[in-house]
């Protein structure tokens, strides 16, 4: 049971890491149309 739950947890962590990385890339691009706001998790 622990193995199954750890695999699920692992996929969730991967999701947040990948999402954060992509938000960081958007900020780095500076393109407002894509959602760049100056702060990584801030959105408009």
């Amino acid at each position: 049971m622990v193995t199954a739950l750890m695999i699920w947890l692992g996929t969730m962590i991967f999701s947040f890491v990948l999402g954060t990385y992509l938000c960081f890339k958007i900020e780095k691009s500076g393109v407002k149309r894509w959602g760049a706001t100056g702060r990584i998790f801030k959105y408009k």
Partner: protein
Amino acid sequence: MMYIVVLGFYLLFIVWSSVKSLKNAESISDFTTGGHRMGLLLGIGTTTATWVSVASVLGVPGYLYSSGVAAIIGWVAGWCLGGALIPLVAYKIRRPETPVRTFPEFIHLRYEPFKKNSPLRMIVGILMTIGYFLLVHIQVVGFGIVFETITGIDYKIAIFAFLVFLLFTSIGGFWSVAATDTLNTVLIVIGVVLGSGAVLAATGGLQNIVDTLSTTTAPTIAGGPPLEKGILLTPLGTFSLSALISIFISNSLGSPASPHWVTRMLAPKNIKVAILQIMGTIGVLLFIMGPLIILGLGAKALLPSLPAGKTTDYIVPLIIQDYAPPLVGAMTLVALCAAAVSTANSMLLTAGTTLYYDVFLGIFPKKVSDKDFNKTLRLIIFVMGFLAVVSAIKPPWFLAMGFVYVYGGFGAAFFLAVFLGLYWKRMNAAGAYAGILIGSIGYVVSKALGASNPFLIAAGISLIGVILAVYMSKKPPIEAYEPYFEEKVSKSTDRVLTNVINRSEGA
């Protein structure tokens, strides 16, 4: 009685929110993708409700009941990994200033931008229509199971009640679907949390459930073969390694390439909102999948074997009816109905739009006004819903496994065309034809021949076909890939983009 009262309130809300949303659906873009202006909270609501289907709320607890914790790996973790990959699609597909409105339109623009009518777009549209019809069929089956439990009406008649919900949730197009979906998400969370609380109370807690699972040998269906002691707590459960890998891969790689998720990434205001929407959804899903795991595993402690003649898809309605207080039971069962309705309406919207906008108007090109477009699309959605209901009179599949088959098919057909199209400039039309045709045919053939992992076989031969086709044919024109790789596009690309997107607009 309590069940019917709660269901009545749910229907009233659906009617109210749908009529309210009708005002928002004015243009083709409004009807199909909400005009590319959806905010974060509504986005999380609609994405969660679409994600949580009857395969999640009935099918997954059913497999937890019969196969044990392995279902967490195959479905819950598989879908979560698939969800994690969806932002990779959003990151690229929302780059153009004027985004496409449908998945086949993306295929047209990326692979055959100079053709007025793209054959590849139509092939994709036809494959999608078949796949979504099957997925809606699965939702109808799940809806029928729950509605039968709530009302006592025979399943074969109960499924026709689905059309009433469909009528109201789909007529307003995207905004109606999004608004009702957000309410459905709230209902689903409350319903499954209450339901799992009732199961925990009835079983005496999580430790008792684990103790039962570690010792039980009770067959899944009364009179069937006994289970091996402790098997329900092993990572593989009753699956073979290859079967579990196949389920995990189909769910995880099939999801991000599934056209309705690609289309969903076109609705938010911008790329960042789309990414945050998926991250938020995965957070909310913790509060849905966690209780569903308790429901499925706890059911084994409460009802060791299902009565003969019932499938594992019935396990949640059965234990909720027997062990939850009336109000809690009613909330949980209405939540299950909400899961079926909210997924079916999104899929019917995607399938109807594709059939009319991408296939019909491709074969019989004509300019249509927004009003005529919306009117025809509503009719198509309702007819498709009716056919799905008729097809569900005799259900052929287990709900969760049906999803695996269709997601596997979508993944085999579209994964390479989507991801290579968005991330590899050299990917061209020949590669897309090879990937989509070899992938879809390969999947059907290997499934028919009984292969244990049809997705991997189809994706493998399709990848070889794509690479050969791409390097044996010309490089794609810059107009095909520029919108997905550059912030600003050239004038010729802008002209091509406008031509493809305005193909059927403006009577």
